[in-house]
């Protein structure tokens, strides 16, 4: 088997800043936008970029993620040659193969990558919201004859000190990397997207493993080592919507941004679809009492109340007299009658009973966890 580019999606992180939303499931599996999960963006980008060989590295609470990704069929990735493969920790005669960092996760899966024998390995993160044609980045990588190409995005200068910043020369060659610099010399933030020449990266990882085994993280260990050895590294600049939904507020904001059909992410673009596993549910039913504006609603919903500037994911029920405003409601949530939900994220399968209220603020989003119940009839049923 010979593959030009193998994508490795790192989906093992917990995403602990999302609090109870990532207690039971990994961050890439967190529902998003009404019918997606966060990882859909990376996987759809792969499919749309023609990269059909994808390893998905999981570790933390992978069940929802594994069920969701399956054999990659939802993204057209269930191909004989290639396809999607879930990679999870395992035991060997050398002991337990746990993944201790981004680069270490790649090292532990060397056997898998070798089976594909790729020229390039595209490293992706499973928890960003964006649409990007990776094939263009790979073309750039080939043109510059780079050993490593790092995807970067210009961030506002005053925020640059929160990111890993790539300092480049006039040819876009990376000459310095600074993690959260106090005084940034550039505003090009690393997106955590890398194109590596596999043979070279493999050598680094194997050599290091034979020595001090310190090469655990791409940003912290691999890029500095590449810089020390004057490997040819280029920055590939991405321009477009890109969001790391690492906090509850950014998750909420990204969802709210998605509602507007004119938003630049353009989720409705049929030429660059975001694919997902499609649940099989009846159509959405807005009763005679429904009052829905500025919102998106997904199949399987039943709405008898008021919904304003919100996202209802599939199979959500909103009872009579209830008001849902500025909120992101995950799948299978039941909202009773005369409930108020404002500035909130409601987790999958949660139940909000009659008359209850969940009211957050724009800078302090209220959250109800998965399967949590709130309001009157908690002990019944």
């Amino acid at each position, binding site marked *: 088997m010979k593959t030009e580019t193998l994508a490795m999606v790192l989906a093992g992180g917990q995403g602990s800043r999302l609090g109870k939303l990532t207690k039971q499931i990994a961050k890439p599996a967190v529902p998003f936008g*009404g*019918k997606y999960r966060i990882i859909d963006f990376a996987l759809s980008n792969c499919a749309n970029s023609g990269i059909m060989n994808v390893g998905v590295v999981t570790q933390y609470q992978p069940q929802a993620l594994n069920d969701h990704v399956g054999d990659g069929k939802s993204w057209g990735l269930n191909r004989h040659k290639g396809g999607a493969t879930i990679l999870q920790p395992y035991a060997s005669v050398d002991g337990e193969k746990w993944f201790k960092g981004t680069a270490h996760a790649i090292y532990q899966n060397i056997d898998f990558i070798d089976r594909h024998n790729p020229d390039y390995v595209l490293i992706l993160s499973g928890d960003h919201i964006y649409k990007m044609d990776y094939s263009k980045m790979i073309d750039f990588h080939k043109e510059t004859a780079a050993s490593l190409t790092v995807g970067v995005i210009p961030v506002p200068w005053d925020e640059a000190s929160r990111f890993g910043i790539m300092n480049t020369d006039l040819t876009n060659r990376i000459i310095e990397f600074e993690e959260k610099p106090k005084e940034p010399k550039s505003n090009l933030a690393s997106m955590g997207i890398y194109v590596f020449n596999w043979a070279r990266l493999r050598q680094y990882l194997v050599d290091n493993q034979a020595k001090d085994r310190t090469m655990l993280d791409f940003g912290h260990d691999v890029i500095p080592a590449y810089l020390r050895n004057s490997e040819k590294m280029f920055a590939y600049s991405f321009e477009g919507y890109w969001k790391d939904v690492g906090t509850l507020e950014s998750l909420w904001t990204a969802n709210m941004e998605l509602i507007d*059909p004119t938003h630049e992410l353009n989720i409705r673009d049929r030429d660059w679809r975001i694919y997902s596993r499609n649940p099989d549910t*009846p159509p959405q*039913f807005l*009763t005679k009492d429904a009052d829905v504006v*500025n919102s*998106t609603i997904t*199949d399987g919903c039943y709405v008898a109340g008021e919904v304003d500037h919100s996202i209802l994911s599939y199979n959500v029920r909103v009872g009579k007299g209830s008001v849902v405003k500025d909120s992101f409601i995950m799948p299978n949530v039941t909202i009773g009658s005369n409930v108020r939900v404002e500035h909130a994220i409601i987790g999958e399968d949660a139940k909000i009973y009659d008359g209850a209220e969940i009211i957050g603020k724009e800078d302090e989003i209220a959250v109800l966890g998965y399967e949590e119940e709130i309001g009157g009839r908690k002990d019944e049923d």
Partner: protein
Amino acid sequence: MRTKLAAILNLTEDAERLQPLTEQRPVASLPFGCRYRLIDFPFSSLYNAEVISAALFISGSGHSLYDHIRSGSTWGLDSPIGGGVFTHSHIEWKWEIAKRENIDVTYYDNHRGYVERANTDHVLITGSGILCNVNLDSVIQYHETKGNPITALFKNVTRASLPEETNVLRYVVNSGQAENVTKVESMNEVPMDAPKVAAGMDMVLMDTEFFLEYLDYADENMKEVSAATAVAYALKQDVLISAYEYTGYMKSIEDIQTYYEANMDMLDENNFNSLFYRNEPVVTRTRHGAPTYYGATSNVTNSQLASDCEVYGNVKNSLIFRKSKIAEGATVSDSVLMQGAEIGKDVVLKHVIFDKKVRVEDGVHLEGTPDNPIVIKKNTVITKENVKENVQ
């Protein structure tokens, strides 16, 4: 043990009275309920009973069906071990030519071959023109408990719930302990005010052995293989026919009016829940698409919508299929708009049925009546100028 029954689907329903919706599709392919096709209902019954194969006999080319069914994987009909959807198209045409030119069309061999290969205890024969959601496990259990070689499904209805001119058969069911079908009549002869009458559901379950006997008979006498002729054969042979009473939502889709009514029925929560929110889900081929967007100026009540729509106008008592757009100021009421409808600004639609991809330009008014909804063909563009000629 792996599969419970062999399923024969007769997709040869008369499509004439459903024109122009059936111009390029069989009745089985008719879109229904915002995101389904009629075939989804029998297929979902198979899916829910974990049946893994089906033989389809189709009047026309069946292209719209093939395109929907593909490998059958949606309904678990693609198992590499014993599974599959086996399609036989142009049945009517082949038959006609067979009769005219005296050719053997292998119609009966196709049935026999499928059933023998499926190697199951039971055979189901069903059509797709009667909308219902049947739990086949329950039918099989009933069939085995009763112990007769054939079980026919019926529902007690009022005569008035069916069209005056109907294809539905009336079963005479003897009551008491052993509920059997003792006679079959044309429903057309039953007075319209009859309050309770057993309507045959064009669906029978048979022991395979009995099916093969019946098939030999059908072959010798050039009879169509169908629930109706199977019941007739059983009556002729004095074989007891168990009668299984179905109590869920049922509607015989025979003409534009019944098609329209069936869609409108879904806006009644009881009907909707009875058809869709049983233990057994209705499964269809899912499509990728964004959630439906309701703009600031939208006002949607008592309506059902599929995903991937954009609504800026008013929708009331209507069913809107995928990828439709309704512009600001437009008002759609008591209507069924199939996939890809584009409704311009300030348009008024009432009592209309749109086939796929109908576009209505700004300001057009189009109103039918509850008893005579206006039907617009696929891909039609309606302008103020041509609106009249489209309402023939």
